[in-house]
């Protein structure tokens, strides 16, 4: 097991305050985006249903910052943060949630099917573990063509109990593919706690890598700097020809499974404690000792960006009903 302790990039370069501040900005953008989305959903403006990843922003930001633009990701049903961090503009995401032509999936996908091939987002996936094998195949294509790119799959602890997960990691390790399997371990499979879905302690879930002889890298998923450094190391390993990496990040979902989830299954005190102590944005803000006015300015900036995204989405174009059949076949 590798634990990234030292606070430097491979090569020894420490992260600058500006870099950390840009991580903070992106995490806050994701947070304000998701809070806005919840608000607009409750106001009845958004069709369908939503899963937000409030509390998990450091994973999306840290991992995607370590990836190159030409690297690809597959996301999950809890996808907004991954999409923003990989580079899709928030107005195109918001437009997608409003079902508009200007959306990143042109209104065909919705919250659980956010795609943006231009920035390497191969799609969020509404089937738990559904996106993992596609990442194995993308990594295979990169390897066969000799391209220095990696493919990264996000998934949660719940996904590690599927056959798809097992088959995918087994195959990727067998062929030493340049893939990073990003385990966002928030300890919940929807409403079922790890104690009811894992036969090993939740914090030991990374041990599953050993079953495949796969490199394991672990980091605190609430510490964006640690996530970033671990992801850099994972990317480097995957590109070295030594095979894929299971990147195990312990994180916390500070909300319900879906927007509107009353969370009857969850201990309220524990949740309050997690909110008070494990919020990745609060943790980084404290570490940077950001002055109040600086924080307020940052918040105002990203809040305005989100408001502009809502305005953009509301002014967007409704698809023509008959365009529903436009992309069934290439």
């Amino acid at each position, binding site marked *: 097991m590798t634990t990234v302790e030292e606070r430097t990039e491979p090569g020894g370069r420490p992260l600058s305050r500006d870099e950390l501040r840009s991580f903070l900005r992106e995490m806050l953008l994701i947070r304000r985006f998701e809070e806005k989305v919840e608000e607009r959903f409750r106001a009845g403006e958004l069709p369908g249903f939503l899963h937000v990843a409030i509390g998990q922003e450091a994973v999306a930001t840290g991992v995607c910052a370590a990836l190159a633009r030409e690297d690809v990701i597959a996301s999950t049903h809890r996808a907004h943060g991954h999409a923003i961090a990989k580079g899709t503009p928030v107005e195109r995401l918001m437009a997608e949630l409003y079902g508009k032509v200007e959306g990143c*999936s042109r209104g*065909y996908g919705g919250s659980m099917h956010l*795609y943006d091939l231009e920035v390497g987002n191969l*799609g969020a996936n509404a089937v738990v573990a559904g996106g993992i094998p*596609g990442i194995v*195949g*993308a990594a295979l294509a990169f390897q*066969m063509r000799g391209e220095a790119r990696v493919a990264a799959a996000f998934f949660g602890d719940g996904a590690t109990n599927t056959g798809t997960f097992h*088959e995918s990691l087994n195959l990727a390790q067998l062929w030493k593919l340049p893939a990073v399997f990003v385990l966002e371990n928030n300890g919940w499979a929807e409403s079922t706690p790890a104690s009811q879905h894992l036969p090993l302690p939740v914090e030991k879930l990374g041990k599953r890598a050993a079953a495949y002889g796969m490199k394991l890298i672990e980091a605190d998923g609430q510490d964006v700097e640690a996530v970033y450094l671990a992801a850099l190391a994972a990317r480097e390993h995957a590109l070295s020809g030594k095979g894929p990496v299971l990147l195990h990040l312990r994180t916390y979902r500070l909300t319900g499974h879906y927007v509107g989830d009353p969370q009857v299954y969850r201990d309220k005190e524990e949740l309050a404690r997690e909110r008070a102590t494990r919020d990745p944005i609060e943790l980084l803000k404290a570490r940077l000792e950001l002055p109040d006015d600086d924080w307020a300015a940052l918040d105002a900036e990203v809040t305005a960006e989100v408001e502009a995204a809502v305005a953009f989405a509301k002014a967007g174009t409704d698809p023509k009903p008959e365009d529903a059949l436009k*992309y069934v076949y290439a």
Partner: protein
Amino acid sequence: MPELTYREAVRDALRKALREDERVFLMGEDIAEMGGSMAVTQGLLEEFGPQRVRNTPISEMAIVGSGIGAAIQGMRPVVEIMYEDFLTLSMEQLVNQAAKHRTMSGGQVRVPLTVRTQGGAGWSPGAQHAQQLEAWFVHVPGLKVVFASTPEDVRGLLWSSIYDDNPVLFFEHRTLYPIKGEVPEELEPIPLGKARVHREGEDVTVVATGRLVHEALRAAEEAERDGVSVEVVDPRTLLPLDEETIIASVRKTTRCVTAHEAVTRGGFGAELAAVIQHGAFDWLDAPIERVGAKFAPLPFAPVMEQYVVPHAEDVYEAIRRTVARG
């Protein structure tokens, strides 16, 4: 024209694609040294090496899923699922991923993946090595479905499937691998969505797929001796379906029998019957007869197996029923 077996014809298309196009590669269980459980890929490992002819673990979900991922990245993978029965293990990736990526992405994604598989009764494999599941996939928007019955068709259709920009389920029939047939000297692609009229006739149209094409041709000869002229049409591609050719044939003959080895209930014949009654209602002189397997998992003992699956006699009897209506 040279003669090839159906097996050699499949291999010929694969070999030509592998030779001409670096994007093409094969993945599947036992396809390398062993040459596949049906010996279809024999010799390809030797010619193209282990990078392009890949043995995989027994992981149908990962085989199909990684094929999808590679296809999206611009490769043209041809994956083999050893038996159609094992498609059940990859259904999530076929139905939720391969078929839907293009629509869900608003047209950003293409999945040029070919999934070859085979099945079919006639050799007592029992219930889990012989199903005919093609109808399931005809129900899934975003997939294409091919079922070829002759060496010429299987070669030309496989080529077109590899070069189609959509995921294609490519069904082969186990008992057809040894049959021989003439093929053009040079591989000629056969477009997807075009039926083939195997035999022209005036009184009854039999629309048949896979092994039943051959059974239908035998039944047609038998009927000919009774003075009944039978046309035999093989759609070859079930999705998209060449409705025009089929409807034109039935409008001419005014009677129709559908025939496949899969169970009759919910089978592809039901879809054909619906298409035909709508397109040729005023021309029909008899109810459309459906020939298929009896509604049972395939039993092992040869006598029971033969009882369950349809044969030329079943097609012949169905033809007789349609002409008996006057």
